[in-house]
């Protein structure tokens, strides 16, 4: 009985906040549950679909995810069978290929670019395109997974601190602030120096460093949502604190978190690239974009193209997430639209 009442309250409050921008259709006829479940996302999606820039971003994310998924399947399940059959092995040094070939249509001291290696070859004669494709695994996986972990932990910490306040709030937020005060990159490097240089630790390190971002964000929202009338109503009806937080406080504070999460994937991809560039992250011969850039540093004069491609790959991917994040912000909070 109690939860039913508060569900309705939540629906009403959502309507009043989204009211003027909403399509009129859900207001009549349909049951309250259905309205509550669908309106937010359907509205957001329709907004995104109208936003051409955000749509491009969605395509980029979709494309990069597909490439990364392909690379994962081929490497983890098929042991590079597809790559070797139709293409080149991304990690093994091939016999007899020219090193540092330029892309098609260009020429350098090592030779003429050919269609066999459309983007050229690296310092060990490996195809750059194939390494870019297999390098996408790391960027996409670490970017998305670490953001997911950081968001989940951060949301829990922030919601608990914001909802209960008092001593818990003080202690939790002091810890969060402390982590936040150590520069992101330095924190992850120190963490990886302690536990190991490989990818898992990069992921854990970046996740930990992401927690404060979300904890602070959700706390600031929760502090104001906590005072809303419908929360008070739920409390008056006797809903348990845990249920209030999980069912009402967090969902109603979540819009900015979704936006931040999308943008954070971009930030984390940049961080992971930076880490790999410094030698912390996927170790050779496993390709990653940051590591390819680090390797290219020694050959910038004879073959500048080697340095161009991995950076472009990072740039395009991160732009995808940033553009979608901006689009989501516009869709979820029309007041912020400029």
């Amino acid at each position: 009985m109690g939860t039913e009442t508060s569900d309705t309250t939540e629906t009403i409050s959502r309507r009043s906040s989204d009211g003027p921008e909403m399509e009129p259709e859900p207001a009549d006829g349909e049951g309250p549950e259905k309205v509550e479940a669908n309106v937010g996302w359907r509205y957001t999606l329709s907004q995104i679909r109208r936003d051409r820039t955000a749509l491009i971003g969605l395509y980029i994310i979709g494309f990069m995810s597909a490439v990364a998924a392909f690379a994962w399947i081929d490497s983890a399940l098929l042991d590079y069978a597809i790559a070797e059959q139709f293409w080149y092995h991304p990690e093994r040094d091939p016999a007899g290929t020219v090193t540092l070939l330029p892309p098609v249509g260009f020429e350098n001291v090592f030779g003429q670019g050919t269609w066999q290696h459309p983007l050229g070859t690296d310092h060990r004669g490996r195809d750059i395109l194939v390494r870019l494709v297999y390098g996408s695994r790391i960027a996409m996986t670490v970017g998305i997974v670490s953001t997911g972990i950081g968001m989940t932990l951060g949301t829990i910490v922030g919601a608990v601190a914001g909802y209960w306040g008092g001593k818990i709030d003080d202690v939790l937020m002091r810890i969060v602030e402390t982590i936040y005060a150590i520069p992101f990159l330095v924190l992850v490097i120190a963490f990886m120096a302690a536990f190991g240089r490989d990818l898992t630790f990069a992921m854990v390190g970046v996740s930990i460093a992401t927690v404060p971002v979300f904890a602070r964000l959700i706390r600031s929202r929760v502090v104001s949502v906590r005072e809303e009338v419908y929360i008070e109503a739920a409390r008056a009806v006797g809903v348990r604190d845990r249920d209030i937080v999980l069912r009402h406080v967090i969902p109603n504070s979540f819009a900015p978190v979704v936006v931040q999460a999308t943008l954070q994937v971009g930030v984390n991809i940049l961080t992971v690239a930076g880490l790999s560039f410094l030698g912390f992250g996927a170790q050779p011969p496993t390709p990653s974009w940051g590591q390819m850039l680090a390797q290219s540093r020694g050959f910038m004069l004879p073959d500048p193209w080697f340095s161009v491609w991995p950076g472009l790959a990072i740039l395009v991917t991160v732009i995808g997430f940033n553009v979608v994040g901006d689009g989501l912000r516009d869709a979820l909070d029309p007041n912020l639209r400029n």
Partner: protein
Amino acid sequence: MSMAKYTVRRLLQAVPVIIGIATITFFLINAIPGDPARILVGPGAPADMVDAVRAKYGLDRPLWERYLTYMWGVLQGDLGTSIHYGGAPVLDKIMERLPITMLLMASSFVFAIGTAIPLGILSAKRRNQPTDHISRLVALFGVSTPSFWIGLMLIIVFSFHLDVLPATSLVMPWADPTTVDGAATRMDVLRETFIHLLMPSITLGTLYMAAVMRIERSSMLEVLKKPYIDLARAYGVSEQRIVRKHAFRNAQLPVITVLGLQLTSAIGGAVLTETVFNINGMGRLIITAINNQDYQLVMGTTLFFGVTFVVGVIVTDLAYAWVDPRVSYDTEAS
């Protein structure tokens, strides 16, 4: 509450955070597997020599004792000694490298703010016109590009192909002219400093510029929508005067916040920028320290960075109160 009292209270609030940073870094660094004493004397050295080194740097004592000793030292401004640099005090190493990183960060700030604020304002004034679209595109690329890649591209174009800018290291403006290549007078040294700083500042400053530009634009738009701006317009105040006299100061509050918070990513960016341009600043110091398992040096530099950030945030808060007289020093207390 007076400004002075507020400042003191904010500083006191920072103390637990700083203790926390020191604690976290201490335990993190001491979890590093491997023996720094062994690394220092080399793998073939006899056991008693390793023991002697271990005793010399206090590595033979239990963890909690080392922790207390360390914290006691930190309280007195002693960050320990660096194993890698032959027992030199960590604080000395930091102070030696600090001006270099400061110069780099300050110049990238100047670049970022100098370009971002005018562009942001212009973008807001000419909303949805070509100028706006271009500067928004610049901002989007700025936040999406890996800073170190910008550095690599700049080196390829301006050092290798056009051969107009140097690709490595910095020249400090107070350097002795005789030690600087191609400089005879103080003016030459300053010119060299400027030339050497150009690419690293752009590399480090781009992310900053983009972040500030975005917030400046949206903040300016927000303020320009306010009724008091309409009123000023109704009185016939010129558009330029409105922006300069009425909107600008009020629009800077979110910008100041972003400036303070971006300080951490700027420090991270400095590590990368210094690596790209082979600048021997704090960033490379910390990488050297980690690669050589120089515990004390890693802890010292991390702690120093953390304190810098905390102080930066406090300065931001104070600047906030200074720009906006409505901000009450008491609000924090409630």
